[in-house]
Each structure stands twice: as C-alpha cells, then as structure tokens.
C-alpha cells in the first residue's frame, strides 16, 4: 500500500492525500500544490489544497512548505495516516483535491443585495455548481484563467469571508461566503431587463417604425418544408435579407417592406398574420443599462407576459438559448416551439418531419429605435441590426446602429 496523509477540509471530510511519488511541492500563503511523478500517476496528478491564512506575514509560503515537508516526513515513517491540519496550526485548509469539473463565474464585493444585483462582477471564481443556483454549503474559490471543464482554471486562493455579487451564466446572485470559503447565503437577483417586446401588441398590424414592440428575426426558411406557403405568403418573399437591405427602406426586402418575410413583422405586414392571441415576448438586458450599446446584451423570451397582465416583474423570462434538435425549444413553451412562428411547434409547419428549428433562425435580429432603458439611462434613438449567438442568447456583434428602414 502506498502511504497517505489526511487533510480535513472545510466540511470536515478527511481527504486522503498520497505522500509518496511526489515530484514537486509549491506553496503560497494561500495554497499548497502537490505534483506527483507522472511515471507513477498518469492521471489527475496534481492535488491542490487551498488555505485560509489568518496572518500571511507570520505564516509565509516558506513556513507552510516547511510544515508540509514535516507532515510528509513524519507520515512516511508513521504506521498511521497523519493529519496535515495538526501541522498547520491556525491555517485552515478549505478545499482539497484534484482540479476536476469546474463551473466558472465572476464575483465582486457588495455590501448588500441591492448593490450586488446592479454590480458588474469581474473576479473569476470556480464554484461547485453547474450553472444551476449554487447551494448553501458549496465551495467557491478564486482561479487563475480557465474556460470551463475543458480547460479548468488553477485555484489560487479561497474567497475571503464577506458579501459578494456572483454572476453565474446569465444569472446574478447576492451571496455570502463564510470563513472557510463556502457559500452560506444565496439570493437570486431579479432579471434586469432594459427593453421588453410584447408581440401581442403588434396585433394584426400593419407594423411600422412607430411600433416599439416590433423586433424582427431573420429566418432561413428554406430549412422548413413549405414555410412560406403554410404561413400564407405569395410571390417570392425574402426572410433573410442582408443587413444593408433590411435597414434600407429603398428595398422591398427591408424590415417594413412589401417583400420582407422576417418574423414576426413580415408575417403580419405581408402574410396577414394576427398576433393578438399569441403570448410571446422578448426582452433585452444590456451589459450596462446606462450605456447605449447592444454588444454583449442578453436576449430573453417569455410565454406568460400577457397572462400576467403585462407586468414584467410577474412574467417568466428565460434566456433565448436554442440547441440543435431540442424539443421543446424552451421548457416554458406551451407549443414546443414559439407560438406565432409557423405552427408554433419545433417543426414549424405540419409537413416538416425533421426538427430544424435551430437552423431556421439565422441569429440576425432587427431592433427598433427603442428609446430609453426601462431601468437605466441608455437611450437608442435609432434602430439596430444585431447578430445574436443563439446558443448563449448573447449579442455577438452589432452590425448597424442606424438601421432605420
């Protein structure tokens, strides 16, 4: 049997750590990193121990290294497994183990919930969660770099006790971290929606540039069998006009033009569709509600805004994220697809047999001149043409900031 030592982590789990085949030991005032000889360990060959250090001037990296070496030396000649905590005195190990799957987020210090929910976290952390709401009692620690489970960041130190804003995925939280770098309180921040587009307000049209609910999506309709025929178009409409045409009223393919088939404006203006009975809304959350820039803004969709009397705070908005072949597209969708888009199902038309919903949407989106943000000072006096990453729901780039068809 190989020799082991014990390290007790912040939830009082005795973690075994091998004290043989060690190739290198690195210490900082907040971290011990043990590298094993790859000749003996071909997999997961580094163990990281994060430390809460009450006095970094007294308990230096050199001091910690000396303690670790003593623990290993004693352990190798002992018949029982020795506990590192007993060698470290007031220094407390928090997280212990290999760098496994990791969910990254950002934190920033915040005095209270109100402050946290409007803060812009910028310190990268790893958290024992998977984009779900973090659970009370789970660990959180600061990392250096890393882009997720494929390229995990290197833990550098525990998170100091205190209150923080935590951004995880598209959701922001107000959290409290206790003295051993575990989350001890979690509160979900309400979505900060700058603009809401209630398609029901478009009714039977005609939709013009005066309709601030008139967002419109470019479609690759050729993926869907009999799309134009099913919706009710005649002639040869264009559902995917290039931005220069979509934004220029000189072209019939422009957003409000007679040959436009973008959704929903084209459907209403040129195919006689009536949105009065559809409960579908979109929303945009700017990266900064005080700056008129759609770059990195996040799109959301709701299927119950009108069921909640148009009260945004009562409606459920979910990230506008679309995967290949998923059904329903959104768990909240009442019709598997989006009501009002074709037949509302993931197949879009009754004669389409393959789920090509993700292919249908091109990601190009027209946003009218929406004016001032509902919650900030951002003010858009012109329409915009955006490219949205449909996997993340985030604006990848802004094609045109003066799109006024």
């Amino acid at each position, binding site marked *: *049997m*190989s020799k*082991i030592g*014990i390290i007790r982590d912040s*939830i*009082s*789990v*005795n*973690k*075994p750590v*091998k004290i043989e085949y060690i190739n290198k030991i690195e210490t900082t005032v907040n971290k011990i990193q043990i590298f*094993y000889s790859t*000749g*003996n*360990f*071909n*997999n*997961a*060959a580094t*163990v990281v121990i994060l430390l809460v250090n009450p006095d970094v001037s007294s308990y230096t990296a050199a001091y910690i290294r000396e303690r670790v070496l003593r623990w290993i030396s004693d352990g190798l000649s002992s018949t*029982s*497994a020795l506990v590192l905590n007993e060698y470290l005195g007031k220094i407390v190990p928090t997280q*212990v*183990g*290999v760098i*496994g*799957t990791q969910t990254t987020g950002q934190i920033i210090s915040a005095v209270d919930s109100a402050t946290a929910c409007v803060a812009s976290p910028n310190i990268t952390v790893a958290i*024992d*969660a*998977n984009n*779900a709401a*973090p*659970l*009370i*009692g*789970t660990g959180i620690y600061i990392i250096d770099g890393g882009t997720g489970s494929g390229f995990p960041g290197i833990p550098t130190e525990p998170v100091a006790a205190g209150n923080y804003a935590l951004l995880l995925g598209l959701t922001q939280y107000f959290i409290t971290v206790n003295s051993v770098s575990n989350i001890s309180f979690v509160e979900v921040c309400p979505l900060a929606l700058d603009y809401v587009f209630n398609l029901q307000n478009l009714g039977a049209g005609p939709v013009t540039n005066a309709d601030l609910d008139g967002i419109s999506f470019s479609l690759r309709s050729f993926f869907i069998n009999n799309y134009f025929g099913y919706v009710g178009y005649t002639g040869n409409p264009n559902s995917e006009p290039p931005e220069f045409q979509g934004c220029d009223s000189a072209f019939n393919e422009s957003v409000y033009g007679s040959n436009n088939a973008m959704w929903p404006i084209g459907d209403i203006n040129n195919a006689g569709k009536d949105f009065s009975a559809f409960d579908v809304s979109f929303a945009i959350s700017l990266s900064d509600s005080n700056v008129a820039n759609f770059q990195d803004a996040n799109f959301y969709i709701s299927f119950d805004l009108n069921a909640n009397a148009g009260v945004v705070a009562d409606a459920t908005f979910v990230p506008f994220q679309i995967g290949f072949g998923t059904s329903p597209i959104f768990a909240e969708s009442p019709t598997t697809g989006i009501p009002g888009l074709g037949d509302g199902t993931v197949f879009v038309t009754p004669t389409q047999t393959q789920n090509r919903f993700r292919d249908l949407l091109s990601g190009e989106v027209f946003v009218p001149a929406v004016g001032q943000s509902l919650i900030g000072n951002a003010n858009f006096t012109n329409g915009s043409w955006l490219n949205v990453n449909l996997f993340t729901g985030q604006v990848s780039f802004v094609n045109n900031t003066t799109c006024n068809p």
Partner: protein
Amino acid sequence: MSIFSLDKLVLSIIQRVTHKQTNKQMSKYIYINGAVESNPTNVNIGLVPIDEVVDFECEVTAAPLQFVVYLGGPYESTTNQQYNIQVDNNLISDVQAKIQFDRAFSRAYLAAVEGFEPVTEFYPPNGVTITALA
C-alpha cells in the same frame, strides 16, 4: 467450541497473519454498494482500487448528481469513476447528502487503507442511492 469452529478460528488467524505479512503488496478494493447496508436488495455498482485513489467528491448541483472518484494509478487504462446518485430530499438535502456521502466514503477508504481485508464494503448514507457507474 466445536472442532469445526476451532478450525475456522485457526484459519482466520492464519489469514490475518498472511494478510499482515503481505499487506504492502496486496491490492485492496472498495466495493461500492447501491444502497444503505440494511437494504435487502443491495447490489454492487462498482469496484474502487484504493491504491489509485487521488481524490473523491460528490457533485450534487448538476444533473445527474454524481460521486466522482479521481484515480491516478500507474496503468495507462486508469480513468476516473463517476457514479450517478439519487438523493431523496424527503430524507436529506442535497448539501447534507454530499457531506454525509463524502464523509462515509472517507471512512471506508481509511478503513480499507488501515485494515487487512482485501475488500471493504461501502454503503451510501441513508437517503442516497447509487444508480449506476456512468
């Protein structure tokens, strides 16, 4: 004590001595059982070679919930073991399940390291079942 019982006792002592003498070379394993010890329909889900364990942890915030044993043995084929687990939240919260599970496995591991038996049984805590080795 019957002769039969005496034979068993002598055999047991010999086995213990033999194990003690060969302890440094002997491979040891933890049998991962699917349910609490008292469950009459318990089944073995997996086998953990304890000499290769580098770390272990319950990941209880993602679906499916998993218990991961990180292995770092000397063999090219060594891969981590991921066990899918189910938590009955009527009996235990996810966080408590993680803590109890990790502590229970730690106890089993240390018992295996310090004991003489080639196989140590591991049972999940009450409220947690292991459904599969993913």
